[in-house]
């Protein structure tokens, strides 16, 4: 999913009313207290937001963007970063989907650059680790 980077805040919020309508009508229970407790704006927002955020770091997204070799190098890079406790680098990786997700800045290319630079740098680190190990 999300290969065209359409998982963004404005769409997430637009999706909330139809999602709530769906859960309230599908069971025929209406807008009862139980339905509101289990399916409310906050829970749907958190779910949608985390779903979109995680999709940018999902293996299938990385493989679609950087090829299968890119995914392997990403995993090697990620393993090396965690084992070496490179917290700043890991922080950058965790932050890099946010510009796309929150639509900041307005320029779409810039947002994409943030994302792909973050992911790409981990891949490069993985490549570097492989080079060091085998050559």
């Amino acid at each position, binding site marked *: 999913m999300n290969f065209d980077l359409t998982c963004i805040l404005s769409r997430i919020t637009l999706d909330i009313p139809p999602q709530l309508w769906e859960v309230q009508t599908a069971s025929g229970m209406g807008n009862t207290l139980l339905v509101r407790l289990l399916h409310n704006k906050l829970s749907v927002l958190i779910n949608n937001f985390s779903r979109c955020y995680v999709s940018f770091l999902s*293996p*299938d997204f990385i493989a679609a963007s950087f090829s299968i070799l890119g995914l392997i190098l990403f995993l090697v890079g990620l393993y090396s970063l965690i*084992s070496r406790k490179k917290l700043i680098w890991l922080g950058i990786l965790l932050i890099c989907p946010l510009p796309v997700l929150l639509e900041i800045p307005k320029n779409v290319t810039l947002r994409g650059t943030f994302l792909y630079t973050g992911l790409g740098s981990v891949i490069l680190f993985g490549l570097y680790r492989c080079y060091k190990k085998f050559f």
Partner: protein
Amino acid sequence: MKKTFLILFVITIIASILRFYDLTKNPPGYYWDEVAIGYNAYSINQTGKDEWGAKFPLLFRSFNDYKAPLYIYAVAFSQKFLGPTDLSIRLPSAITGILSVPVLFFLTLELLKSSKIALTTSFLLATSSWHLQFSRIGFEGALALLLVLCGLLFFLLAIRKNIYLLIPSLLFFALSIMAYHAEKIFTPLFLASLFFFFKKALFEKPRKKLIIVILIGTIFFLPYLPTYFSSEGRVRLTQESIFGQKEPANILFIKNYLSNFSLDYLFFRGDQNGRHSVKKLGELFGWQLPFVLVGLWVLVKNRNKSSAIIFAWLLLAAIPVALVRPAPHAYRNFISVAAWEMVCAVGIWKLIKNYKTAFIIFVIAVYSFAVYLDHYYFHAKKAYAADWMDGNKEAVLYLKSVEKNYDRILVYKDLPPIYILFYGPYDPAKLHFSNHNLDHLGKYQYFHKFDLQRGQSKERTLVIVPSWAISSSDNILREIRMNNGDPLYRIYEL
């Protein structure tokens, strides 16, 4: 240890309640594969042959999809006590689902040597939406999973304790191949990787004993080998194969393979087939994501045989899904559910340091489970009634209740004959005698074109057609609806 077993007992009770409650009514309808399993089991009990007349087959032809045999024989056994009922179809799956919980406890204990991780794993499996989905329906997956769990448990015990325990291990693995198609690919690969991981430990055992055990174990696989390599045995693989598609097979394989590890599929949306999940939640709960990641990290860091087994399990379980379409497929990948729960339990015990965090996580987990139950018991039941072919059973039961008043009943092809066969039930011997002619089943006759006109026949005739085929103002005798109120069939007199 006494306390541990008491907790395990409570977890197993919870698993039983979740699997037995409303078992025959939810999922709402009986999908035709379930009904076919039920009828073939009935046919075996009555005649010793399947619906096509094959004597005690190792592959059931059914809808020309050649179903794996073991679950059908399990249903045949349950029908010895329950008769050809709805419960007889789903009960073996529910029981094997419940048994998987304590078996997974002992397996995790053997593998990770920690009773708290083992208890957490079995609790996670007992309350897993993925496992609940497939252990509450009359499909083969839950039985196959239990057999693989038993096979692995005995394999580990054979390595640690007595080499002769390799015999039951190989028996369980051989049976798992007979239980479900995905295991035909998974089990040999998994078994090969187990032998690879433990080759040193195995060769340290007395050579003579080892050879005897492996020879006996091989015998278990022999009966199924001819069907394994036959064209019928590969039907499911070729029917939905990735080969011969527009996209190159290698690209499709990689895409399908990776889709099993998509975080969206695992934690947020699940399989988008209404029979495979509630579609609004992941196969695992969203709150499990950080624990799964930490669990994977711990296992990578440990780099011992246990983590190698778990990784092999996860990586090999995705291969059956990758070879066919569509993907991801929660049912074909079902075997991995136990491994994912194990990884999550490892992560939980790595991250939880005090009671406060444990309590917060517990509250989130309970909330997520309540959301799942709400989806499962209230929303999915209605929203995906059509996926379960809801209404077909009700239609046949109605026809059965009035059939004595009519000379013939004309049935349009939309109502699959398997429902008439099972809910009749139609004598399998008659079906064999008619050369499996499904167009004439006693009073029931199938028609394929809407060229019927009232008053043409002198026989008292009842007709059942899809609801779209006839107007509701046309003297309808009865309208069959799904549980969500959507009309399915209309019945009238000719």
